[in-house]
C-alpha cells in the first residue's frame, strides 16, 4: 500500500498530527464532562430545569458542526486561535450526550434503592456519591464514550478552520488530489475512534455487569 510508505516517510508529521488530534478531542471531552456531568446531576435535583438544559444542548448539537465553527470565528479571544475555537466547539457538541446520559443514568437507578438510602438517613450528597453515581456509572460512561467518539470524528473537520489534527492531511490531500495524503489522515483518525470506542466499551460493560442487579 502506497500510503503506508508515505506515512513512514513522514513519520514525524503523522505522530505530531495524531497527538494534536488526541489533544483536541481529549481536552474538549474533558471540558464537556466537567460541565455536562454536573449539569446532568443538577437537573435530576431540579427537574424543572431539565427541559431547558437538555433542550439547549439539543439545539447546539443540531447546528451543523462546520457552521458552529464558523459562528465562533468572530468571537473575541476564542476566535483568535483556531485550537481554542475548535476545542470550545467540540466541547459544546459533546454536552448533549453527557448531560442526557448522566440524567438518564441517575433517574434509571432503582427508585427503591434510592428511597432506602434516603430513609436510612443518607444526606443528599452521600446519596449522590455513594449510591446514585456508582449505579449510574455504566450509563454515564456510555455517554462519555459517545462524546469521545463524536469529538474524534468532528476534530477532523477542525482542520478546515486551521486547528490542525489529522484532518489537515485530509484537506491537504484533497487539494493535492493525492490519495496517499488523504488516507494518511483518514485512517489514523478512524483507528483512533475505533480504539477509543472499544476501550470505553470495555469499561462500560465492566461497570454495567458489576452493578447489575439480580
Amino acid at each position, binding site marked *: 500500500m502506497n500510503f503506508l510508505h508515505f506515512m513512514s516517510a513522514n513519520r*514525524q508529521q503523522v505522530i505530531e498530527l495524531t*497527538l494534536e488530534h488526541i*489533544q483536541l478531542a481529549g481536552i474538549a471531552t474533558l471540558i464537556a464532562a466537567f460541565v455536562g456531568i454536573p449539569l446532568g446531576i443538577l437537573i435530576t435535583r431540579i427537574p424543572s430545569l431539565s427541559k431547558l438544559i437538555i433542550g439547549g444542548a439539543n439545539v447546539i448539537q443540531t447546528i451543523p458542526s462546520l457552521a458552529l465553527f464558523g459562528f465562533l470565528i468572530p468571537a473575541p479571544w476564542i476566535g483568535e486561535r483556531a485550537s481554542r475555537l475548535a476545542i470550545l466547539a467540540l466541547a459544546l457538541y459533546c454536552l448533549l450526550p453527557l448531560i442526557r446520559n448522566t440524567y438518564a443514568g441517575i433517574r434509571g437507578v432503582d427508585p427503591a434503592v434510592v428511597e432506602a438510602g434516603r430513609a436510612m438517613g443518607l444526606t443528599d450528597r452521600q446519596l449522590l456519591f455513594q449510591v446514585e453515581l456508582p449505579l449510574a456509572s455504566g450509563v454515564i460512561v456510555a455517554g462519555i464514550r459517545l462524546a469521545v467518539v463524536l469529538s474524534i470524528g468532528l476534530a477532523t473537520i477542525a482542520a*478546515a478552520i*486551521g486547528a490542525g489534527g489529522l484532518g489537515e492531511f485530509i*484537506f*491537504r*490531500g484533497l487539494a493535492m488530489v493525492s490519495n496517499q495524503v488523504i488516507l494518511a489522515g483518514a485512517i489514523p483518525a478512524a483507528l483512533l475512534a475505533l480504539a477509543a470506542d472499544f476501550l470505553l466499551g470495555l469499561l462500560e460493560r465492566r461497570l454495567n455487569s458489576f452493578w447489575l442487579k439480580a
Partner: protein
Amino acid sequence: MREAHQLRRRAISACFFVLELALFLPVTGCTTQSEHIVIGSKNFTEQLILGELFAQIIEARAHLPVERRFYLAGTFICHQAILSGRIDIYPEYTGTALTAVLKQPPSANKEEVYRQVEQSYEKQFNLTLGSPLGFDDTFAIVIRGDDARSLHLQTLSQAAAYTPQWRAGFGYEFMERPDGFKGLASSYGFHFAEPPRVMDLGLLTRALVQRQVDLIAGNNTDGLIPALDLFVLQDDHHYFPPYEAVAVMREEMLKAHPEVKSALDLLAGQISDDDMRRMNYAVDRQHRDASAVVREFLSERKLLQSN
C-alpha cells in the same frame, strides 16, 4: 472480592489520570524548536512555487532540513498554523495580510502597506516579514495585446474612453467584492454599453482571446498573460491595493536559526512580475514539476551556491 473491586477501580482511575496528563503535555513546535524548518503554503500554484523557492534556498544556503506542508486551505489556515507553531514560514501577500488578517481598510501606497503589516505582525503575532520578493499579485485588468498596440493603450485611464465600445468579463468574486468592479468602474469612469458578463475564472482568458469579451480582470501573475499575448493595463489611479509577495516567519524560529532570514533575503527583489508569470505558466499549463521549475530558476540566478 471487595479488594479486587477496589483495585480495579483504582486501576481505571489511574489510566484516566495518565491519559489526562498526556493530553495536557504540549504537543507541537510550540515548545522547543526542532531542527528542521517547516514551510507551509496555500493551495494554488503560485503559492506552491513560492513555498518551494523558500524551501530550496534554505536547504541550499542555510543548510537546514526542510519539511514541506503545502496545500493548506487558505489564508486563515496558514495564519493559524504559523501562530500555533505548526509551520515556521509561509508566503503571504501584503494586501491580504492587511485586509484579511489585520482587518484594516486597504491602502494604495506600497511602502505604507508593507510597513503597516510589518509592524503589526511583529507586535501582535511575533511574526517577522521578509523583504518583498519583487512582484505584485494584485488584480490585473487585461486586454488583448493587439488592442493595446493599435490603440496605444498603457493605462486604465486611457482605456476608459473605449469602454463604451467594449464588453467586459469578470469572475463572480470580482463582481461581488466592494473593492471589485463597482469601485473600479467609478474610480476610472468606465461606461460599458452592456453589463459585464460573469463567468468562471478559468473561462475568462479564453473568452478574451476568442473576442467574446474585450476586457477582463485576472491575476497579475497569471502565466497566460505572456503566453497568449495579453496586456495588463497600468493601474495609474492605484485603485487596487498592493499585494506584494513576502515571506512570513516565526520570530522564535529566527532566534534559533538566524541563517534562515539571511537565506530568504537572497530572494529579495529577485522575482519580477514576468518571472512569476513564466513559472506559473510552466507549472500550470506545461504541467512541469514545481520543484524542477524552481531549481531551474534558482540556478539561472546563481542563487544556489554561495560565492
